[in-house]
């Protein structure tokens, strides 16, 4: 319990750091982005919206930085992330709310599958060290060195195209309305297979390798020798003795590298024009839509923190030693 409280405190601190970072970044933007937006949309912006954008960019000359900071927090706690420039009168929170489920569905599920599958394969590769499996390791290195987005491009070139089962872009059939019904769900799944496979292929090999190395290290421990000497079956020694212990560092490694993985997988969305946060971020960058960019960064960071907390809970369940103290 103490462990969990400590971790939670740390994540709250990180969230605070990310929000503060988010507060300062727009203050580096040269010029007055709000003014240019106002002049572009003459008379269509309400006074409230202008006020909220000015707070976001720190353009209110009457406040000092500290007051601006408090004001920013107040706005944030009301869920107000400002207005999106590209999707003009829509607030950033609505735009993000629309795309978040897509990212959680694609990136979240694929990352977990990739971890589980990679770990399982790593157990096999580590236990059978010195067999033909070792010959495959360089191939997995090559796969993990390929940028996600390039693999996506190749996948589109090879598998998608006119008349193919796999669509090359989008999250669902254009004519459908997002809903949980028999038309939309299959279409969404069909659109997600290719991006998911891309992420899986290039992210899995890292887990295979780290799990293999942990298995190799663990399998020379004395308790493994004892388990063998007791005459336990090979399978039992491999899974309940070696893999059980080799798993722990891999789980904590998973928690720590979530930030890296999520950053990389968001790019796959860009290539497939998948309507998630990554694609939204790409569009926001292209249109210099600063409020949307910051909102997305904030949401990604907070999602990663929540995922980290969940990984910590999983670690707690797996490692009895953390529960004892």
């Amino acid at each position, binding site marked *: 319990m103490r462990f969990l409280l400590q971790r939670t405190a740390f994540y709250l601190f990180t969230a605070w750091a*990310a929000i503060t970072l988010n507060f300062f*970044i727009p203050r580096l933007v040269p010029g007055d982005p709000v003014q240019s937006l106002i002049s572009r949309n003459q008379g269509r912006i309400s006074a409230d919206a202008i006020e909220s954008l000015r707070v976001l960019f720190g353009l209110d000359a009457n406040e000092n930085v500290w007051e601006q900071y408090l004001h920013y927090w107040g706005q944030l706690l009301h869920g107000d992330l400002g207005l999106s420039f590209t999707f003009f009168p829509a607030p950033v929170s609505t735009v993000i709310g629309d795309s978040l489920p897509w990212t959680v569905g694609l990136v979240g599920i694929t990352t977990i599958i990739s971890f589980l599958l990679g770990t399982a394969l790593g157990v096999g590769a580590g236990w059978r*060290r*010195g067999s033909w499996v070792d010959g495959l390791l360089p191939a997995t*290195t090559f796969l993990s060195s390929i*940028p996600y987005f390039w693999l996506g*491009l190749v996948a589109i070139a090879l598998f998608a195209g006119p008349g193919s089962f796999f669509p090359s872009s989008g999250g669902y059939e254009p004519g459908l309305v997002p809903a949980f019904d028999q038309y939309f769900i299959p279409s969404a799944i069909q659109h997600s297979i290719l991006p998911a496979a891309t992420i899986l292929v290039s992210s899995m090999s890292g887990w295979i390798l780290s799990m293999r190395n942990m298995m190799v290290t663990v399998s020379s421990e004395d308790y493994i020798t004892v388990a063998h000497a007791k005459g336990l079956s090979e399978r039992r020694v491999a899974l309940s003795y070696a893999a059980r212990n080799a798993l722990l560092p891999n789980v904590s490694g998973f928690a720590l590298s979530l930030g*890296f993985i999520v950053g990389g997988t968001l790019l796959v969305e860009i290539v497939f024009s998948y309507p998630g946060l990554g694609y939204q971020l790409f569009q926001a960058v*292209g249109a210099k839509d600063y409020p949307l960019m910051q909102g997305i960064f904030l949401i*990604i960071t907070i999602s990663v923190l929540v995922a980290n907390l969940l990984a910590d809970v999983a670690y707690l369940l797996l490692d009895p030693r953390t529960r004892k103290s």
Partner: protein
Amino acid sequence: MTISPSSIEQVIPGQGAMAQPSAAPGRAKRRQFRFIANAKAATGLVILGIYCLFAVIGPWVAPYNPDARSGDVLQAPSLRHWFGTTHLGQDIFSQILVGARSVMVVGLVAGVLATVLSILIGVTAGYIGGAADEGLSALSNVFLVIPALPLIIIVTSIVEQASDTLVALIIGCTSWAWGARVLRAQTLSLRRRDYVEAARATGERTWRIILFEILPNLTAIIASGFVGTVIFAVMSEITLAFIGISSISSWNWGTILFWAQGQQALAQGAWWWFVPAGLAIALLGTALALINFGIDEFVSPRLRSAGRTRIRTADGRTVRMRVGFTPVLAPTPSVPTPRAATTREDVVR
């Protein structure tokens, strides 16, 4: 301290005394090149060397000016244009050669910066301990958990047309955390070793202990952290160029992919436009990863892929060698084979 002959004799029977007279220079030489003797590391280093060579001479040996347009629009690879041409008739082979420099420079600069930061923060936190350690590890954990790539994208997008140097600085400043964490953990374990205690007891200054006692023992970790950061920096730079954030006037492989994507190279079937750049990135990444494996296996020999682990025993069964296990090769222990007898005799003698 002249106990070496006897101790070698104990470890490797029958070798110590014979090898003694001329052993010193030969052994030293072998130790020097032991890292390169690892096949993975050697392959990685050779490929990396070729990339570095192209980074230096690329712009001079490129057959065309990468910006020059020509009449050969969207041509498949041929003898005149090895990797084909773009929609403006630019030679893609030249673009890749010229782009190598930017990729390598950003990778190295960001790698060096991140490594220096990680040494400063990680080793200080590990060695000094206490409140400074708490603060510095919290800082590095925060940087570790915050998704680096979105942060890099946002910071870079604020700067108009960021140059290579700036991109390298931004990447270096955001990607040091992993190295710092690993270094801190290792420093913590080194700090209480006897030789460090001895140095402290003889009155060596703190900076001297850190620089001369602890840092040399962190070399492998620092090197692998550096290689890892270079991989990450190269990927990030290419990603930034691919999204179109960093300057698109200078060439790197991401820029090529940016134009290929923007001009619908896929829909036009122009595979040669994006395949070479992607393979170049993947090969560089593989080379760096292989060097990292080499370092890992150098430090912890257990990770090496063992050669042949299936061995035929005398009675025709096969036994799989396993770490920590000694397969019994002889069918029955009561009838020692001649081979076993001689070795035992050797040991006794």
